C-alpha cells in the first residue's frame, strides 16, 4: 500500500485559515478587541451576553464561531511549525504533532463548548 502524505491536509487548513483571517481578521480583532471594549464607533453592548448566546445557539452562528477559532488555530500553528526552521531548530515528528495537535485540541474544545451551550 502506498503511504500517502498528510501534508495536503495541513496546507489546506493553513490556506483556509489564512484566507479567512485575511478577509475578516483585522475587522474581527478591531470589533471585539478595540471598538466594543472602548465604545468607539460601536456601542459597549454590541457583544452583550444575550446576543452572543443567541449567536452560539444558532446553527449558522455555531458554524461561524467554530470555523474562525479552528481555522485561525490551524493557520497559526502550521506557520509557527514552519517558522521553527528559520530559527535553526531541526523539527522533529514530535514538534509537528505538538503544533497540529494544539490546533486540533483547540478545535475539539470549541466544538465541545458549542455543543454544551446547546441549540
Amino acid at each position, binding site marked *: 500500500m502506498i503511504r500517502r502524505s498528510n501534508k495536503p491536509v495541513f496546507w489546506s487548513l493553513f490556506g483556509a485559515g489564512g484566507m479567512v483571517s*485575511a478577509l475578516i481578521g483585522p475587522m474581527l480583532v478591531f470589533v*471585539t478587541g478595540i471598538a466594543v471594549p472602548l465604545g468607539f464607533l460601536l456601542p459597549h453592548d454590541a457583544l452583550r451576553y444575550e446576543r452572543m448566546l443567541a449567536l452560539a445557539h444558532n446553527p449558522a452562528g455555531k458554524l461561524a464561531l467554530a470555523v474562525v477559532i479552528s481555522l*485561525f488555530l490551524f493557520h497559526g500553528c502550521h506557520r509557527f511549525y514552519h517558522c521553527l526552521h528559520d530559527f535553526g531548530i531541526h523539527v522533529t515528528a514530535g514538534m509537528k504533532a505538538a503544533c497540529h495537535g494544539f490546533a486540533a485540541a483547540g478545535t475539539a474544545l470549541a466544538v465541545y463548548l458549542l455543543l454544551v451551550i446547546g441549540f
Partner: protein
Amino acid sequence: MPAPNLLNRYTRPMEGWWRRNPFYLWYMLREASCVFIIAYALVLLCGLYRLSQGEAAFNGWLAALATPRSIAFHGITAMMVLYHAWTWFKVMPKTLPFIHIGGKRMPDAAIVTSGLAAAVVLSALLFVLVWSGRS
C-alpha cells in the same frame, strides 16, 4: 580520530540572519503574525468557555477585554493581522491556480485587487452586522 557522528553534527550558525536585510525583517514580521493569530483564537476560545458558564462569567470576559493591557494587545494584533492580510493578497497571483476569463489569463494586478476588494466588502458587512444589533 573523532567519532564519525561528531563530524556531521556541525550546523552552520544562523544567528540573527533575518536582522541583516530589511527584506528578511519584513518576512519575519509576516511570520510573527501567526503568534498573534493563535493568541487571538485563544481569546475567542476563552470567551466561548465563559459564555458556556453563564452571564456573570461572560461579563467578566468582556470586562477583561476593556483593560488597557488587552486594548494594547488587540491594537498590535490588529496591525499584525492587517499586515498578514496585505501579504496574503499580494502573493495570491502566485498561490492561486491560473484563472482564465474569456480565454485570457487574469492579470496579477486584477487578482490582488479582487482579493483586497473582497476583504473590504466582507469586513464592512461584518461591521454592519455587529452594529445592527445595538439596543
